[in-house]
């Protein structure tokens, strides 16, 4: 699903160049559930942004679902993101003036699906995350866990190949975090590839493979007990 080789990425701020990713080789198969760990500044978010086509890269090669992702126009990038990738963010990033149902339906809006139809589909996904009763509530009326589940439903609705989650549990308490991870596992079981960036060990242990980043390199990677259960 994701094939990365020799990936380099630098940020240029003024005269300073900050070399963040220094040659990453990484392959994630379809249906995997991977967590990327590392301390702050290790480049884990940058890697996720590159994978999510939110950011470009300088050197190397990146294939997503068999397609070379390189020098895309904004329009193409938007299309790939819409078709193949679902995003879950630490701060949920729901649109404040749209209710839960409309937030979930938003990706379908950009696919030009008629309102009635996309709201029907959105209701199905809301039911999947157990929040159908909250469909007409605005994000400000929901708890953190509820918001994150809305965001997950939004990520799922366009039927993506990969879900990228950037610190999805960072703003949640432990109990809610575990519930969210349980939801992720269910999604993964349905065949969707999950890539989760986190710095919490207990969260990463709930995925099947852990990749440790340190100073722009992959320090180590190993499979967890969870994967063995399924192996």
């Amino acid at each position, binding site marked *: 699903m994701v094939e990365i080789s020799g990936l380099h990425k630098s940020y240029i701020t003024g005269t300073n160049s900050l070399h963040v990713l220094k040659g990453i080789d990484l392959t994630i198969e379809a249906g995997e559930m991977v967590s990327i760990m590392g301390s702050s500044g290790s480049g884990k978010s940058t890697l996720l942004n590159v994978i999510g086509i939110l*950011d470009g890269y300088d050197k190397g090669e990146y294939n997503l679902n068999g397609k070379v992702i390189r020098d895309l126009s904004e329009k193409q990038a938007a299309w790939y993101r*819409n078709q193949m990738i679902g995003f879950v963010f630490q701060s949920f*990033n729901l*649109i404040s003036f749209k209710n839960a149902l409309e937030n979930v339906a938003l*990706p379908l809006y950009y696919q030009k699906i008629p309102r009635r139809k996309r709201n029907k589909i959105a209701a199905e996904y809301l039911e999947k995350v157990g929040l159908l009763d909250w469909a007409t509530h605005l994000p400000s009326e929901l708890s953190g866990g509820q918001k994150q589940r809305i965001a997950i439903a939004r990520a799922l609705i366009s039927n993506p190949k990969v879900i990228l989650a950037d610190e999805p549990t960072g703003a949640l308490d432990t109990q809610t975090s575990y519930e969210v991870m349980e939801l992720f596992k269910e999604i993964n079981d349905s065949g969707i590839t999950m890539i989760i960036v986190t710095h919490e060990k207990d969260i990463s242990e709930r995925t099947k493979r852990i990749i440790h980043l340190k100073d722009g390199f992959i320090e180590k990677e190993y499979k967890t007990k969870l994967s063995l259960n399924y192996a």
Partner: protein
Amino acid sequence: MIDIDKWQEIFHTLRHNKLRTFLTAFGVFWGIFMLVIMLGAGTGLENAVYSNMGDFAKNSMFIWAQKTTMPYKGFPRNRWYQFTYDDLHSLKRNIPEIDIIAPTVNGGGFRSSTLIVNGIRKGSFEVFGKVQEEDLIDPVDIEYGRFLNEFDLREKRKVVVLGYRAYEELFAKGEDPTNKFVRINGIYFQVIGAFKSKHTGRWGENQNSEVYIPFSTAQQVYNYADKVDHFSIVVKPQYQVVDIEPKVMAILAKNHNLHPDDKGAFGYNNVGEEFKKMNGLFLGIRGLIWIVGIGTLLAGIIGVSNIMLIIIRERTSEFGIKRAIGATPWKVITTVISESLFLTILAGNAGLMFGVFIIEMVNKALQNSDGEMFQNPEVDFSLAITALCVIIFSGLLAGLIPSKRAVSIKPIEAIRTEN
């Protein structure tokens, strides 16, 4: 198709910042309002001046005799001379560009009035000897009867056409004056008609106190022999009055032994040139109005643009999220532009309507007054359409820069921005 989500978003943003929305909309509102008001007032001024002119032949000139200013052929300067009816023939014969030429004599001399009596009613009015062609040069509205005709002139009939004020003084209200007799200078004249001037203001009042008798009759009853006081000359439409003027003067100079360069021997008035000057003046006024109006409007547009920039800064992360989940840059641009378009069109149309409303109110209030300086202020349809185009264009302009800014931010940076 109505895109509910788009409108929901636009209304949310505008409602969320009520005061700001109002203030920026007011800028555009005021700009359009001022433009409409000023243009309407400009039209009012123009209407007043042009209606003062009535249906006066625009391509025309007047010429009358004055004292000579140069000695010539043994004649001294400061000599009085008179135009004669023969001049009419020689002018007509020698200048084919002339369309109409009409002689006039002032009964009793320049600006002196004659006593006119009808039974116990009487009044003093200026009597002019005119020809029937006069009605083609400075047309009047006939209220009773008819204007002078060829037979009146040929037969030197003692008939008179009364100006409306003369009619009002000499006849009872509503009385038909035709075929009645009035005494002018002791001689009975049959009234053939009464007219109202097409001019407004003082010009109209003056003309309404004038009385016309046939030119040929006037020469006889006032003992003028062959005298002509002034010629009114209308030039064929394809020629310019300015070009004909020297030809007319040359012929008249030859007929009356005037020095060829003695322009001072003629009094003349070139109506064509006056009209051109007036047109130029109004063009200038209109240009100025547009410059000032567009300037005011521009200030409003910049206001809208500014506010949009601030709003976009506040919504950076929102745009980021949208782009992360598949919104194309074009989608973002159109959202921002529709927002500014919506705001400017709403405010602009309000300004347009309010402006037209005020103009119409003023128009209504002025309906019954005969304004010499201001009449019928109006906003015509084409102007309203132009204003509408200006509004739409300005809405696009106001949204352009902010929308460019909105998409220039990378989605990832947009998401990272703190709310």
